[in-house]
């Protein structure tokens, strides 16, 4: 079985299998012959003017799939939606990436796509929040914004001739600190209105990047620099005098409480369990899993034990059958 390499005892094995079979039977009724593999022909009922989309090609007058996946039809368009593939960028997607290189005027980010993405210095807000031309000094100070191996959140701006351009023109984008980055398969992330989530009860920021990179980190208040600017200017005179107190303040700021760190780990483990089982990742699912684990009084490390995998799978099977009945 793919990806699931956990030691199960006999009863757990049977229970897991039953839950997964149930899931299979639930979905097989919905789309029985929509799955295709490479070089399967896709029946189109000899309609005229069929538009061939991604993952299809024409051979001897019939449309064939070039990848394994699910056939989707939108009016006259026929395309194959891949499972397990690298992230395919779309304009406006919110993604999380890792800086791999600081180049002149740009950072290069690994975003689990077929190419590295480029974040230009000019397409992001400066930390001081002032709109101005980027000078040579800014260029020299680029490492003070992002360094190599930093985790960054940004938005896809578009595909220019030589690569993928990103932008980070808002306070919600930028460097991510004090948290965990999880890498899952991008097909498990569905496009939603919201990809930034502030989980109030845990004090945590959750960013579900469309490229399958998920960030779980301590909540940071989004500061609007434009408003704060005036306040800051008046404060500047006072803060300059006592450097020692400022560094203490700095220390306090970088300290993450034990409770928050535990919450981060718990949520991260919930994502790990869900992605290993191959279930779609959404905030609701993650929160459900987290509350399931805490209602069972499971320790954080116990969430990755085989029993919890089985429980999550069973719960998912029950939940899906319930939603099915409602419809």
């Amino acid at each position, binding site marked *: 079985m*793919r*990806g699931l*390499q956990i030691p199960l005892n006999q009863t757990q094995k049977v229970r897991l299998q039953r839950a*997964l079979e149930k*899931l*299979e039977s*639930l*979905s*097989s009724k919905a*789309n029985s012959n*929509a*799955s*295709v*593999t*490479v*070089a*399967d022909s896709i029946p189109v009922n000899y309609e005229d003017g069929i538009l061939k989309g991604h*993952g299809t*090609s024409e*051979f001897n007058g019939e449309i*064939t799939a*070039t*990848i*394994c*996946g*699910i056939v989707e039809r939108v009016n006259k368009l026929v395309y194959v939606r*891949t*499972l*397990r*593939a*690298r992230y395919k960028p779309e304009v406006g997607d919110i993604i999380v990436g890792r800086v791999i290189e600081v180049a002149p005027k740009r950072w290069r980010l*690994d975003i689990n796509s*077929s*190419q*590295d993405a480029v974040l230009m210095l000019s397409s992001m807000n400066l930390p001081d929040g002032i709109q101005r031309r980027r000078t040579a000094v800014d260029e020299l100070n680029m490492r003070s914004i992002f360094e190599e191996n930093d985790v960054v959140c940004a938005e896809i701006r578009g595909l220019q001739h030589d*690569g993928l351009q990103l932008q980070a023109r808002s306070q919600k984008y930028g460097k991510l600190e004090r948290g965990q980055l999880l890498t899952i398969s991008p*097909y*498990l992330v569905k496009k939603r209105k919201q990809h930034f989530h502030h989980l109030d009860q845990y004090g945590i920021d959750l960013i579900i990047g469309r490229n399958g990179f998920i960030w779980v980190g301590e909540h940071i208040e989004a500061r609007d620099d434009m408003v704060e600017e005036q306040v800051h200017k008046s404060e500047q005179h006072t803060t300059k005098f006592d450097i020692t107190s400022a560094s203490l303040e700095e220390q306090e700021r970088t300290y993450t409480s034990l409770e928050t760190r535990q919450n981060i780990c718990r949520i991260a483990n919930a994502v790990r369990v869900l992605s290993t*089982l*191959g*279930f*779609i990742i959404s905030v609701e699912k993650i929160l459900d899993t987290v509350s399931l684990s805490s209602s069972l009084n499971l320790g954080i490390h116990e969430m990755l034990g085989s029993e919890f995998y089985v429980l999550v799978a069973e719960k*998912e099977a029950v939940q*899906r059958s319930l939603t099915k009945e409602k419809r």
Partner: protein
Amino acid sequence: MEYVSPEGLRLDGRRPMEMRQIRGEIGAVAKADGSAVFEMGNTKVIAAVYGPREVQNRSQQMNDQALVRCEYSMANFSTGDRMRKPKGDRRSTEISLVIRQTMEACILTHLLPRSQIDIFVQVLQADGGTRSACINAATLALADAGIPMRDLVTSCSAGYLNSTALLDLNYVEDSAGGPDVTVGFLPKLDKVTLLQMDAKLPLDIFENVMQLATEGCKAVANYIREILLENTKQLESRRGL
């Protein structure tokens, strides 16, 4: 030596036109984009595909197509006798090249410009026909990685010993020194992408042997298709709405 008994049985008890048992499994390497294990009898091969990803060596980047790379290696424990040079010998280099060319022919490289696809295959157990097994494993891994392909390329070997055409040679039959025809085949397009033979054969016999190998390829293709379809269905049903 007698490779086919008067009763028409081979050394391992197969009929001349019988293949060894084949088995494939998707998802053997967790970190890779696509991976598979493929077995043909006692030959066992593992394949991992990384990519499409950014080209590592900028000078090799192509603006209109993807760069395909392949590395074939044999595990030190794959054969009984210990190998002197496990890596970089001529045989491995040649097989790497053969697999690369075969896979490149079926990948739609023009859809993935400025990127690179790495295919790594390693022989875990060698019992003849490693070339074929590697190609089959690589096909499974590429399909698992979601890389667009013209068709599933499959491969099978056939030989000619004791005036009988034999399908899917094992190590003993392979080392007999007779002709060994390895065919790489695209079943849907009905095209051959790989044809290798390391001995001489009369033309009419060669056609028979090649026909036999092609039939073997088709059987492998059917099996691979089944595995892929099952895998796709499983992933989709797990994912849910």
